[in-house]
């Protein structure tokens, strides 16, 4: 085995795997609390990537009047923050107007609504006055360069930025969920909604906040994704759905509802995908991930870090 290829595959796998982990966090948070697959989550990720495009283009256009806006550092601060805030807002609205009226309805209904929201976001994004029906290239606002080489492997600035921000966000999430009052409330709600409500936790607010946090993470992942792969497919392209699905698989593999499991699963999925593409065959890219899923479900149905629960009557 060629060491160079191995290391290259490893870095790629970890970089993309950390993105999966970020998206998987959103899935796992929502699943932990509401027990349903939020299909629209993958579309929020796509929205984050496209908002990055729209904001970059918009800011570069207004840089003609205000030259300060075209500065890479200003762009690098405004664009991600704008994309994340807008994604969080969209996540809040989705929860408020689509999922909240269905609180207490059968899970299948919520799932269908989620599919509806997902379709809505995809197709709204394709309209002429939104992002348009064609793939587009995000203008690069900082020059990618090779930071250094190790054993013949080039370390790109983009990879470092992507990985760095993703890891920072994951550490922040870890802190938020396990060290703050809000995180404690979130865990309490996911443990038992009624008991949490009896302890004085405003469950509706916690659910809204969970959606906001998950959507913000998806928005951040979308921003990072558009840094690494600036050529964006139109919002209804299967690529986005597949990316979202793989992130969901990551959450399941790690143990759905388990925050650390989502991070582990994301990295694992990224590595499996890239190693499969590199060493087996590139045409079965998506098959490896789903085969891993089936394998995990057969051996450890609750996921790698999940606890097996006993059903009580």
């Amino acid at each position, binding site marked *: 085995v060629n060491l160079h290829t191995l290391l290259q595959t490893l870095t790629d796998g970890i970089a993309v795997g950390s993105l999966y982990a970020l998206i998987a966090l959103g899935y796992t948070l929502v699943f932990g609390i509401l027990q*349903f*697959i939020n299909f629209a989550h993958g579309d929020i990720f796509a929205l984050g990537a496209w908002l990055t495009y729209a904001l970059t283009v918009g800011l570069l256009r207004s840089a003609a009047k205000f030259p300060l806006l075209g500065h890479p550092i200003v762009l690098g601060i405004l664009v991600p923050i704008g994309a994340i805030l807008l994604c969080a807002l969209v996540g809040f609205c989705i929860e408020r107007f*689509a999922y909240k*009226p*269905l609180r207490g*309805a*059968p899970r*299948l*209904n919520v*799932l*269908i*609504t989620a*599919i*509806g*929201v*997902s*379709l*809505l976001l*995809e*197709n*709204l994004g394709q*309209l*002429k*006055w939104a992002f348009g029906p064609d793939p587009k290239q995000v203008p690069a606002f900082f020059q990618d360069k090779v930071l250094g080489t190790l054993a013949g492997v080039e370390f790109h600035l983009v990879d470092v930025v992507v990985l760095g921000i993703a890891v920072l966000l994951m550490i922040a999430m870890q802190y938020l969920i396990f060290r703050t009052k809000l995180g404690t409330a979130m865990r309490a709600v996911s443990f038992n909604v009624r008991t949490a409500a009896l302890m004085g936790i405003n469950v509706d607010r916690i659910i809204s906040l969970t959606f906001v946090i998950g959507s913000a993470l998806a928005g951040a992942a979308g921003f990072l994704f558009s840094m690494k792969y600036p050529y964006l497919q139109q919002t*209804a392209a*299967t690529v986005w*759905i*597949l990316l979202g*699905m793989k992130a*969901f*698989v990551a959450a*399941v593999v790690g143990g759905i509802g388990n925050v650390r499991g989502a991070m582990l699963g994301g990295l694992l999925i990224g590595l499996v995908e890239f190693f499969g593409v590199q060493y087996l065959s590139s*045409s*079965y*890219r*998506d*098959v490896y*991930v*789903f*085969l891993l*899923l*089936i394998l995990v*479900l*057969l051996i450890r*149905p609750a996921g790698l870090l999940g606890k097996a629960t006993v*059903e009580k*009557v």
Partner: protein
Amino acid sequence: MTPSSSPHAARSTATIFVDPPSIKPPLWTSPLRAAWPFAAVVIFAGLLHLVIVPHMGGYESSLLIDCGIAIIMAVSLTAVNGFTGQFSIGHAGFMSLGGYFAAAIVYYGTYHLFGDFSFQGGLLSSGADQTVNATITAGDLLFVGACIAGAVLAAICGWIVGLPSLRLRGDYLAIVTLGFGEIVRVIIQGTGDQLDTNSDPSVTDVSFFRALPHLGGALGFSGQPVYSTSFWVWLAAGITLVATLRLKYSSYGRSLISIREDDVAAQAVGVNITRLKVRAFVYAAFFAGLGGGLYAMKVGTINASDFGFQKSFDFVIMVVLGGLGSVSGAAIAAILLTILPELLRDPPSLWPTGLIIVGIVAVLILAFAPKRRGPLVTLFAFAVGWEGLVRGVKVLHWFGPHLLGAGHSDSAKALGNFMVGFSLSDYRMVIYSLTLIIMMIVRPKGLFGIGEIWDFLPVRWQWWNRPARAEEGK
């Protein structure tokens, strides 16, 4: 059952265990009772194909076939998602499997049996432009056999997929079926090029079974002769409907529904839940494969990339919209959701008759069933909503040019341009998804809930429902 044959008869009063003679029909009628719906289906499909379709345009009859295929898919999925309460979202994967297998058998089989790739069907498989003498030919038999073979293959795959994942509870089936659909797509897209005499004269040397795996890869499989007419499709749709309805009211179906209601309780009363879940899943996969075969021979092309998540979601949406566990509801939702996007594509050509029929039916039933109007009001609101939408667009188109004249500001002109260029077909999927969301919030149980459409008729019309009528007469 006679009293003397019953084991309890010796120690209890014999008359308790005897069915009242007025309800139990005579034994000799049972084959008749089993067969008449299927005979009716054959007659209906035949009449449809030979009498009605010749008067329809090409677009309408093609839509009719699409509706039939959608009914097969949605109704079969009802057995899993509706009766059993499991959540399968890989139905399109089974459709794709069955479709490809059937298409390959018909395509290569036609070549090996008849020497070329041309259409060999009889009257029942022919469109309006073809003239043939025979009613059923060897080509038809090949086509029917291929569709059944595709269905069997899909059922076998359903068994393999269902066995591990149905042991688990919860949403795992959803994820596994989703992954399965994706795996099927990727594997089919990785197959070798399709063989034909133009590109490769050596097709004559390849035996039938060697040729079968050449499924065309990412380009799709095309050129198979077109056999799926409204006859075959509606025959299959009718069989699916009758079989699923009978399943619902059989002891099997009651066991499936008990799993949906409470699987622990079902297990406690002796229902083998894993086995029954797998059987329901295999049943659904079988008909999905059948629908795939019919789809593949409809225009003569099939492409694995059409059978992604979206397609599976479409079928799930039909089931949920119709009402989980309602067979007729799934069929109606299948028809609605097939026609709806087409209506938005080109409103004027299909709309008026459809609206009038829906309106008349809704008004009639509303007039007679004041207490059970839920689903019909929904349908009616649906129709009125669409009509309003179409008229609204007409208003936009009429008013838009008025903003474009001289003397208007730039923003007014931009608005005018938007109004002139507004086309409903751009917003097709947006409206579709919004309808879905609103529907789920307003009527979370779907159109008909667990009931069938005829349960919503006035009780005095339900001639088959003696207990309910007796109740009402009191």
